[in-house]
């Protein structure tokens, strides 16, 4: 029986986080829940602790990548074998945690695919092109289909947790594209499982035309940097 940690990076998610925690807890009572409070200025940490999660509060905002670095470090020090990343805004369906955990039998990392047949989730324009390009490239690198490389709903098995505890990128898109690339280049396998994507319970989606175009540019850059990087040369850190 592997020890499972559900990691929830949260930045000012006070309204939605108690619901996410209670849904995860009732669905997977065997898993522990860690909320990484990424420098929130509201009461995210307080309400998360009250909802029964372990809470780690960062003194300032470091982004999703930085928050997940903290989560993997926490996981390795506390002896967890499996880490599952879930968004704090209620866009993910906790019932699908099972698929992500079970699929770890066949792969070291399982990415929740929001674009499966029958999914109502859709992205258009430059943002979609960027996702397509990233997916194509990473699939080729992995020798497996990765339809949705920027999905934030994913699980990491023991080998991936070991790797990410010492080598996890904090750059832009590092938590999604960069981490997959590092894993693939260290010989880890990547699988995927279909997931549902809900619209945000609170807050506004960060998607307008200018932002999307910028996203395409930054995604391209992230991809080029990723392709250039020599994983064996990477600066690994002490656990």
């Amino acid at each position, binding site marked *: 029986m592997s020890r499972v940690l559900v990691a929830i990076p949260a930045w000012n998610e006070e309204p939605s986080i108690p619901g996410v925690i209670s849904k995860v807890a009732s669905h997977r009572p065997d898993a522990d829940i860690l909320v990484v409070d990424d420098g929130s200025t509201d009461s995210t940490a307080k309400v998360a602790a009250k909802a029964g999660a372990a809470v780690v509060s960062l003194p300032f905002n470091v982004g999703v990548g930085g928050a997940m670095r903290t989560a993997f470090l926490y996981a390795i020090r506390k002896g967890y074998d499996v880490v599952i990343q879930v968004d704090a805004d209620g866009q993910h369906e906790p019932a699908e945690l099972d698929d992500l955990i079970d699929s770890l039998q066949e792969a070291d990392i399982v990415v929740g695919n929001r674009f499966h047949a029958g999914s109502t989730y859709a992205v258009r324009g430059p943002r979609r092109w960027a996702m397509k390009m990233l997916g194509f490239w990473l699939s080729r690198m992995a020798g497996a289909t990765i339809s949705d490389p920027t999905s934030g709903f994913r699980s990491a098995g023991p080998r991936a947790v070991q790797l990410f505890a010492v080598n996890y990128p904090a*750059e*832009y898109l590092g938590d999604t594209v960069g981490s997959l690339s590092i894993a693939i280049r260290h010989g880890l396998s990547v699988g995927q499982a279909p997931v549902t994507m809900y619209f945000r319970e609170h807050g506004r989606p960060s998607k307008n035309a200018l932002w999307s175009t910028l996203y395409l540019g930054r995604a391209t850059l992230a991809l080029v940097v990723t392709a250039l990087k020599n994983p064996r040369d990477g*600066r690994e850190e002490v656990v």
Partner: protein
Amino acid sequence: MSASLLGAVAAILVFIFIVILLRRGLLKEKYAVLWLLFAAVTVVFALVPGALRWVSDLLGVEIPSNLIFFATSTLLILVSIQMNYELSRHEARIRRLAEEVALLRERLDEREGESGGTP
């Protein structure tokens, strides 16, 4: 011709150096972008004859080399502003971390005092 060749060689060397730093994870992408862009543009201008004069005429700059000086100083100013910005951010973050450590140490001392342990 030899001057533009020199420029091209220098730009290519800078490009290679930046890529090596990126590969080894010693330089973050946000710092690399300006340099890579600048190196690429320099190579184009050095290798395409007449490109510099054409742009100079377009912008109404009489002596093409003045355009190079202008572009170079603009880049250096941008890079130093970026560095000052990042430095300010880091100062604020380090101060915050120092505060966190001090407060944590105070809490730890308090607890050790309570349980009768030596501080």
